[in-house]
C-alpha cells in the first residue's frame, strides 16, 4: 500500500483529471484537496502514523491552487480564522 503511494508520487507530473470536478471552474477541486491534505495530516498525526499518504493531496492542491489562496488559507489557519472544517 505504502509502496503504491510512493510509486504514484514518483510518477506525479501534475493534477490528473478528477471526474468529481469535470468542468472549467476548478475552485472546488483546489479547495477539496487543500482540506483533504490538512484533514489527513490531522488524522494520521493523531494516530501517530506515517503521513506519506497525505502527500498526494498536497501535490494536487499545490498544482491547482493559486499561490495567493494557499498563503491566505495558511494565514487563516494560523490565526484560527480558517472557515473550512479540518
Amino acid at each position: 500500500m505504502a509502496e503504491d503511494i510512493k510509486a504514484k508520487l514518483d510518477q506525479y507530473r501534475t493534477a490528473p483529471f478528477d471526474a468529481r470536478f469535470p468542468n472549467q471552474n476548478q475552485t472546488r477541486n483546489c479547495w477539496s484537496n487543500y482540506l483533504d491534505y490538512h484533514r489527513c495530516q490531522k488524522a494520521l498525526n493523531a494516530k501517530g502514523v506515517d503521513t506519506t499518504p497525505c502527500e498526494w493531496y498536497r501535490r494536487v492542491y499545490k498544482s491547482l491552487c493559486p499561490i495567493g489562496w494557499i498563503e491566505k488559507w495558511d494565514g487563516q489557519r494560523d490565526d484560527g480564522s480558517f472557515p473550512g472544517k479540518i
Partner: protein
Amino acid sequence: MAHQAHAYHMVDPSPWPLTGAVSALLMTSGLAIWMHFHSTTLMSLGLVLLLLTMYQWWRDIIREGTFQGHHTPPVQKGLRYGMILFITSEVFFFLGFFWAFYHSSLAPTPELGGCWPPTGITTLNPFEVPLLNTAVLLASGVTVTWAHHSIMEGQRKQALQSLALTILLGFYFTALQAMEYYEAPFTIADGVYGSTFFVATGFHGLHVIIGSTFLTVCLLRQMLHHFTSEHHFGFEAAAWYWHFVDVVWLFLYISIYWWGS
C-alpha cells in the same frame, strides 16, 4: 348636457401623477445627496410628497368610484387586471431575491467554508418564532377570507371584527419579526448569509406593513359604509395583496429559515 356613450371612465385632469413623479425624482436624487453630502432634506421632502400623493390620489379614486359611480363593471375589470399585474410584478421582485439566495447557498464558496450556513453563522431555530410567524400569517389568511364572506353576506359587524382581527394578526407578525431582528445573532453585514436573509425578509416585512395599511384603510371604509355586498373591489384587492404576502412568507420560511439552516 353631453353624456358619454360608453361605460368607461374618462378621468378628470389630476395633479397627482405629476406630484408622484416629482416625489420619485426628489427621493432618488435625495438618496444620492444623503450618501455624498450627509443631508436628508431632499429625500425627506420627496417622502412627504409621496405620502401626500398617495393619500390624495387614492382618496380621489374612492370619491370617483364609491361616491360618483364611475366604477362600472368594465372599469372594475380594468382595476382587477391592474391589481393582478401589479402583484405579478411584485412576484418577480421577490423572485430576484430568492435567486440571489439560492445562487449563494447551493454552491457555497471557500470564503464561507464551502458550507451553508456559512462557518460562524448561528441560524435561527425555524421551529421557534419563525414557526409562530407562519401560524400567525396563515391564521390571518383565514380571517381575511372570513371578512370577505361577511361583506358578501351583508354581515356588517362580523366584517368589522374579522377585518380588525386580520390587521391585529398583521401587527403581531410585525412585532414578532422586529423582536427577532433585534435579538438575531447575526447582522446584514455578516457576509452573504446576512445580506440574503435581511434583504429578503426585510422587503417581506415592508410588504406586510403595506398590506396591513391597505387592510386598515378597508376597515375604515367598511366602518363608513363604502362597501356593498356586490361591489367591494378595494377590499378584494387588499385581500389578494395580503394572500400574496402570506405566500411569499411561506417560500421564505421553507427556503431561508428551514432548508437554509
